[in-house]
C-alpha cells in the first residue's frame, strides 16, 4: 500500500507537471474578469481511442483522462457520469421518469444501451477497478448506474492533477434520447466515462467545495468541465464520419477500417457520427464576405465597443446531409451562416475553427435537434424539400437554435441539471431574435397557403391563465412532467427575456447579454450571476422582476374591463364660472359640453409590474400614463369636452408574458367589421362543405 501510495503521489505530481499551464485571468465569483476569456481553463484532458463494431453497435474504448484540481480543496475521490447507463434497463432513473418514451421515441427490451467500465487505474499506478461504486445522489434508486464514484488512494492536492487509464465498452441503443443508431446511422453522444464538475466554494453559491454530479434524468441535460479532447475513432471504411473539432489525421487500416483523429481544445464534451450515406457539403463562413462594415459599425455602436472587438473569424462549416434531404442543403447552410454572424456580432466571436451540422435520417429523429461543442444535429424531413412545405421554417429554427447553444451550453456552460433555463431559455430568446430579424417576425415558424405563423405565438399560446406547477428556476428533474419542463426551461424564459428587452430597450439589453456572455464565458454561472450582470449593466433594480418571473410562477393578465363617458351638466359660458345655473335657467344649447370619463383596468394574476396605459378621446391625440400595477385594479377618471374613444393597457405590447393581449384594449363604440368579415367567411366555408356533401 505504501509503495502504491508513493507511486500514486509521483503519478499525481507527474500528471500536474505535464498539464497545460496557460495563464488565465481570475475566473471565480465576484472577482471575475471583465475581459472575455480567449481560452477555457484546461481542467480535463481526454485522449480516447474507440472502435465501432457495426454489427453489434458496440464501442470498445480506451480513455486516458487527466483531471486538474483548480480548487483549494484536497479532493479525495472522483465522480463520473456514465450517461448511457440510463438506457440500461427499466430500473434506471431515466426510464422510471420517462416511462420509456422521450421526444417521440420509445425505449424497451432489445434496445438497451449502457457503458461498462472494465478497467480503471491511475496511469502507471494503482488499479482502482474494484473501488468503483455507483451512487444515486438525487433519489433513492440504488439500481441507477449513471453516476460512478472512485475513491483515490491519496487526495488530489490543490493545483495538482491525476491521470487515469480507463477501459470501457459502450452499447449504443437504437436511437433514443439524442444518441444511438438507426440503420447505418450512428449518433454517438454521452458515450464515454465523463468526469463530473468539482465546484469549489463560492462557485454558484456553494459554501463548501464538492462534486456536482447528478444522475441522468428524463428531463435533464449535461454539465462538465473544459479541456482538450483528442479522439481516435476506428470505423468500417465505408462510413462517412463527423465529430467535434477538426480532423487532424486519417489512417487506413489493413482490416478494412479507417481511423480518424479529431482534436478540439476549450470544450467540455465530444460527440461524433458515422453513416455511409452522408453527403458532405462544405463551405466557409468568411467573416469578410458575410459581415458588412455597416453591420459591424451598427453593432459596435449598439454595444458601445470598438469596431475591432466586433470582428468575427472564418469558420469551416461541414454539413453531413441525408441524400433525401439534399435539396435543403442551401437552407441549412444559410441558417448556419446567419447564426454564425448574428450570434457572433451580438455575443462575441465564435472561437472555434469548425462547425459540423449533422442531418439524421428519417427514423432517427430522436438524434435530431441537439447540441455538442462545434457539432450540432438538425431536424427536418423530406416533406420540406418542395413547395409549399418548404416555407415551413423548422429546419432553420432548429439549426439556429442548436448553433446558439454553442454560446450558452457550449461556452458559458451553466449547470443544465439545476438551471436549465440559463441555457435553453436564453438560447430560445436569442434564436427568436435571430430568426425574426432574418426571416420575418410574422412568419418565423413558416407560411402555408398564405397563413403566416409567428414563432412567438407558440410560447404565448402555452402561457395560460392557470399557472402551471413549477417555476423557471428549479432543478430540471423536479418538474411535474415533460411539458412543464419544456415550458419553464424554454418558453417562459423566452417571454421573460423578450419582455425585459422591450422594457430596457434593444441597446441596454444587447449590452446586458454581451456582458453576461463575455464575463461568464467558460465560467459555469448561476441565475444569480445573470441577475447581477443585468442589474449592473442596466442600472436598474430588476430584483423584483426576476423574483416574480424566474423564481416564482406568477402570471399576469392585464385587462381593460370598462370604459365610459357620462355627459355632465352643460356649463353656461357667460359668467357662472362653471357653477350650476340659477333655478329654472337653462344654459344655452351651444354651451360647451363636458364629459366625465372613466377607464377601469384590472390586473389578474400575482405578478405586479408597472404598466403604461393609453387613452384616446375623440378628435384628440392619445395620452399616456403609468400605473404601478400593485393593486388588483385601477380606475382612471377624466373630465374632458370629448368622449373617450378607446383605452389600452400596455399599448406597445412590452409584456410578452401578459396572458392575453386581446383584453388589453376596449373601445367605446362597437366596430362590427371584423365580426362581419369573419362570420361571412366561416359561413362561406361551411356552405362549401355542405355543397360538397350535397346534390
Amino acid at each position, binding site marked *: 500500500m505504501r509503495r502504491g501510495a508513493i507511486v500514486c503521489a509521483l503519478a499525481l505530481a507527474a500528471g500536474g507537471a505535464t498539464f497545460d499551464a496557460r495563464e488565465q485571468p481570475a475566473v471565480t465569483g465576484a472577482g471575475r474578469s471583465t475581459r472575455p476569456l480567449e481560452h477555457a481553463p484546461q481542467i480535463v484532458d481526454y485522449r480516447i481511442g474507440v472502435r465501432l463494431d457495426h454489427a453489434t453497435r458496440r464501442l470498445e474504448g480506451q480513455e486516458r483522462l487527466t483531471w486538474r484540481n483548480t480548487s483549494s480543496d484536497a479532493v479525495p475521490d472522483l465522480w463520473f457520469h456514465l450517461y448511457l447507463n440510463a438506457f440500461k434497463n427499466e430500473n434506471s432513473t431515466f426510464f422510471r421518469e420517462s416511462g420509456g418514451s422521450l421526444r417521440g421515441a420509445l425505449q424497451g427490451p432489445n434496445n438497451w444501451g449502457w457503458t461498462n467500465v472494465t478497467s480503471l487505474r491511475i496511469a502507471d499506478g494503482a488499479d482502482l477497478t474494484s473501488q468503483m461504486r455507483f451512487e444515486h445522489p438525487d433519489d433513492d434508486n440504488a439500481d441507477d448506474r449513471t453516476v460512478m464514484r472512485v475513491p483515490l488512494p491519496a487526495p488530489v492536492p490543490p493545483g495538482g492533477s491525476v491521470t487515469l487509464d480507463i477501459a470501457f465498452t459502450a452499447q449504443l441503443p437504437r436511437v433514443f434520447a439524442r444518441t444511438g443508431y438507426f440503420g447505418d446511422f450512428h449518433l454517438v453522444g454521452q458515450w464515454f466515462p465523463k468526469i463530473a464538475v468539482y465546484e469549489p466554494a463560492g462557485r454558484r453559491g456553494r459554501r463548501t467545495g464538492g462534486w456536482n454530479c447528478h444522475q441522468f434524468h428524463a428531463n435533464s441535460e449535461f454539465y462538465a468541465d473544459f479541456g482538450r479532447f483528442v479522439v481516435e475513432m476506428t470505423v468500417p471504411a465505408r462510413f462517412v464520419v463527423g465529430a467535434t473539432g477538426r480532423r487532424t489525421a486519417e489512417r487506413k487500416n489493413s482490416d478494412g477500417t479507417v481511423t480518424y483523429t479529431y482534436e478540439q481544445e476549450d470544450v467540455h464534451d465530444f460527440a461524433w457520427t458515422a453513416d455511409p450515406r452522408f453527403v458532405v457539403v462544405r463551405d466557409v463562413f468568411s467573416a469578410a464576405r458575410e459581415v458588412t462594415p455597416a453591420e459591424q459599425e451598427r453593432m459596435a455602436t449598439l454595444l458601445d465597443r470598438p469596431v475591432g472587438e466586433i470582428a468575427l473569424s472564418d469558420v469551416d462549416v461541414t454539413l453531413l446531409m441525408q*441524400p433525401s434531404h439534399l435539396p435543403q442543403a442551401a437552407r441549412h447552410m444559410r441558417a448556419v451562416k446567419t447564426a454564425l454572424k448574428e450570434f457572433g456580432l451580438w455575443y462575441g466571436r465564435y472561437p472555434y475553427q469548425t462547425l459540423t451540422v449533422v442531418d439524421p435520417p428519417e427514423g432517427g429523429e430522436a438524434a435530431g435537434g441537439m447540441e455538442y461543442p462545434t457539432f450540432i444535429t438538425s431536424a427536418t424531413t423530406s416533406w420540406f424539400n418542395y413547395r409549399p412545405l418548404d416555407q415551413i421554417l423548422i429546419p432553420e429554427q432548429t439549426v439556429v437554435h442548436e448553433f446558439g447553444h454553442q454560446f450558452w451550453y457550449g461556452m458559458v456552460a451553466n449547470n443544465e441539471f439545476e438551471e436549465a433555463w440559463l441555457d435553453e431559455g436564453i438560447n430560445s430568446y436569442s434564436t427568436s431574435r435571430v430568426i425574426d430579424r432574418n426571416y420575418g417576425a410574422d412568419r418565423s415558424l413558416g407560411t402555408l397557403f398564405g397563413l403566416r405563423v409567428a414563432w412567438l405565438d407558440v410560447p404565448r399560446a402555452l402561457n395560460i391563465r392557470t399557472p402551471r406547477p413549477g417555476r423557471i428556476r428549479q432543478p430540471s428533474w423536479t418538474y411535474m412532467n415533460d411539458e412543464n419542463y419544456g415550458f419553464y426551461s424554454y418558453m417562459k424564459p423566452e417571454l421573460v427575456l423578450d419582455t425585459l428587452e422591450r422594457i430596457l430597450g434593444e441597446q441596454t439589453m444587447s449590452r446586458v447579454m454581451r456582458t453576461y456572455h463575455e464575463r461568464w464565458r467558460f465560467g459555469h454561472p448561476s441565475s444569480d450571476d445573470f441577475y447581477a450582470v443585468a442589474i449592473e449593466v442596466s442600472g436598474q433594480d430588476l430584483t423584483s422582476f426576476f423574483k416574480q418571473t424566474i423564481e416564482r410562477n406568477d402570471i399576469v393578465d392585464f385587462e381593460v374591463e370598462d370604459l365610459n363617458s357620462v355627459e355632465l351638466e352643460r356649463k353656461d359660458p357667460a359668467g357662472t364660472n362653471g357653477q350650476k345655473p340659477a333655478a329654472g335657467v337653462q344654459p344655452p344649447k351651444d354651451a360647451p359640453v363636458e364629459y366625465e370619463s372613466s377607464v377601469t383596468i384590472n390586473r389578474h394574476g400575482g405578478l405586479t409590474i408597472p404598466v403604461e396605459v393609453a387613452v384616446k378621446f375623440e378628435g384628440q391625440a392619445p395620452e399616456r400614463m403609468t400605473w404601478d400595477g400593485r393593486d388588483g385594479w385601477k380606475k382612471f377618471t377624466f373630465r374632458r369636452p370629448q368622449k373617450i374613444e378607446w383605452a389600452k393597457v400596455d399599448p406597445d405590447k412590452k409584456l410578452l408574458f401578459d396572458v392575453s393581449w386581446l383584453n388589453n384594449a*376596449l373601445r367605446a363604440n362597437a366596430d362590427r367589421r371584423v365580426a362581419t368579415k369573419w362570420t*361571412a367567411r366561416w359561413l*362561406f366555408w361551411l356552405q362549401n362543405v355542405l355543397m360538397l356533401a*350535397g346534390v
Partner: protein
Amino acid sequence: MLTTSMRRGVRAIFVEARVAILVWLANVALALVALPAVWSWWARTSLLPEADPLLERFHTGIFRDLLIDGGGNGLLSMLLTGLGLLIVSVPVSAFLSAGTLEVLISDDSPKFFQRFMTGAGHFFWRFLRLAIIGGIVMAIAVAAAVAGSAIAVTRLVQSNWPPGPFVALGIECATFLAVTSFFLLSFDYARIRLALTDRGGALRAWLPSLWLVLRHPLRIYGLAVLFLLLFAIVAAGYLFAIARLGSHTMPLILAGIAIQQLFLIVRAALRVGLLAGEVELYQWLRPAGTAAPVVDPRPPQSPVPLLYDAQ
C-alpha cells in the same frame, strides 16, 4: 358524344338557372342555422381594437386569445353545429338532387316548381337510401384503397431519392381521388337511371351504374373533368377577386360577401350543368337491358268537358 353532353350541360347552366338558385337557397338556409352561433362568437371582437388586424388577414395569436377569452366552448358548439348540418345535408341533398333530375328529364309543361317537387317527393327515399348505403361502402373502399397504396409506396418513401416521399404522397392522393370519384360518379348515374326508368330500388340502380362507369371511364370521367376545369376557372376568378378586393371597410366586406355568394350560385349551376350533361351521356350510352321508358306525351282525356272549352 362528349361534346354533345358538354353542350347540353353548359346550356343547362343558363336554362336551368332556377334550379341552381333553388339549390343555393337551400344551402343558404342550412348555413343560416349556424349564423347565430358564428356571429355571437365573432361579435365579441366589436369592442376589441386588438382584434382589428384580423381585417387584413388571419392571425394565429389573436385567434388563440379569442379562444382563451371564453371562446373555447363556443368553438366546440360551432363544430358540433357544423357536424349536425353535415348530417342534415344528406337528406336535403337527396331531396334536391331528385327534384333537379326531374326538372332536367321531364318536359316543360307542368310548372318548374311543380316538376321539382314532384320529382323530389317521388324519388326522395330511394335517393336517400343510395346516399347512406353508398356513402358507407365508399368510405370503406376509400380507406382500404388508401391504406393499400400507402403500403405499396413504402419503399419509395424510405428510398434515398429526394422526390420519393413527395411522389408517394401523390400516388396516395391519386388513389384517394380515383376511388372517391368513381363512387361519386356511380351515384350520379344511379340516380339518373332511377329518374329515367323509375324502376327498382336504389341498390338495383347502383350496381349497374358501377359497371357503367367501369365500362366507359373515358367518356364519363372526361365529362366530369371538363366541368371540373370550369369550376377551377371560376374558383381562380373568385380567389383573384377576393384577394384584390380588400376588407378594411364595411362596403368592401359586403361586396366580398356578395362575391362569395355569387361563387356559390355559379358552383351550384355548374353542378346542375354536370348533371344535365350526365343525363345526355347516359341516354346515349343506355346500358344493355335498360329499355328507354315509353312516355305517352298526350295527357289522358277527361270525360268531363273543361268549363273554359265550353266557353
